[in-house]
């Protein structure tokens, strides 16, 4: 039941976001769009409730975490991404690479947390997630430029992958 409500509310919200500006009810919506939004929410909630919501991931429902997520996306994450692009620009122009695949301990317990960490790693400097060990949630990460002292190590901690901020701690606060 909770899964149905969450899915219906989410799909209805997305529909209303996409149709904002169509009329004048509450300053934004045409009356017909509100009716259609209710039907869309019901239909999607019935069809997709099993795939969209899991009981294990109830923590994501907390609105404080959404605010944290937006803050993470425009703050630390965006800066890491800018640094990543300067790094890629340097590699493209000079062609200086020392690639390798290393195991990275993620320390995440939920699927959402692992997904967010993997996406963050892919978009931050010199790293690309290749595979996931689904039992321990460890990530296999392709590095574009490995230093000599790190390549002999057995595995890396997730904190060492990021340069400027402690992104894994942010992800843990948002998704777990």
């Amino acid at each position, binding site marked *: 039941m909770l899964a149905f409500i969450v899915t219906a509310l989410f799909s209805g919200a997305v529909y209303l976001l996409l149709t904002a500006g169509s009329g004048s009810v509450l300053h934004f919506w045409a009356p017909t769009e509100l009716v259609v939004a209710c039907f869309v929410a019901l239909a999607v909630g019935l069809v997709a409730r099993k795939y969209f919501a899991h009981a294990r991931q109830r923590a994501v429902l907390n609105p404080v975490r959404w605010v944290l997520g937006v803050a993470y996306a425009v703050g630390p994450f965006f800066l890491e991404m800018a640094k990543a692009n300067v790094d*890629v620009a340097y590699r493209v122009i000079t062609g200086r690479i020392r690639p390798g695949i290393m195991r990275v301990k993620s320390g995440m317990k939920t699927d959402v947390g692992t997904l967010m960490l993997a996406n963050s790693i892919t978009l931050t400097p010199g790293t690309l997630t290749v*595979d996931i060990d689904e039992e321990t949630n460890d990530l296999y990460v*392709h590095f574009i430029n490995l230093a000599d002292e790190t390549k002999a190590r057995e595995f890396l901690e997730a904190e060492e992958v990021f340069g400027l901020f402690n992104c894994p701690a942010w992800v843990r606060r948002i998704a777990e």
Partner: protein
Amino acid sequence: MILNVLIWVALGIGLFFNTLGVIGILRFPDVYTRLHADTKATTFGSIFTSIAVVLYAAGQYWHTLDGQYATLALHTVIAVVVLAITNATGAHAIARAAYRRGHRPVQAVVDHLEGKP
């Protein structure tokens, strides 16, 4: 006036990084390093061209108070969020598929996935 300069700067940064991404795809030696250039540079470049669009819409809304410019900005933001999430996940899927197909990273100094399923 200042807004116009900002729009030009954002478009310039966006085109610069998009160009670097495409050059990276042509220049790098194997599929993983090409994915690096593709995912990071083209996502970042597209975010910046979209920021230019959002700035333009904000400026027009300020002048005309026409609701359609607010819609333009909102939809552009949604498109950017969708693009950032799908690009990163898609790159992950391609890298995994390439490894399972038997491509090994060229010039690799270390490979912890070697021998794993």
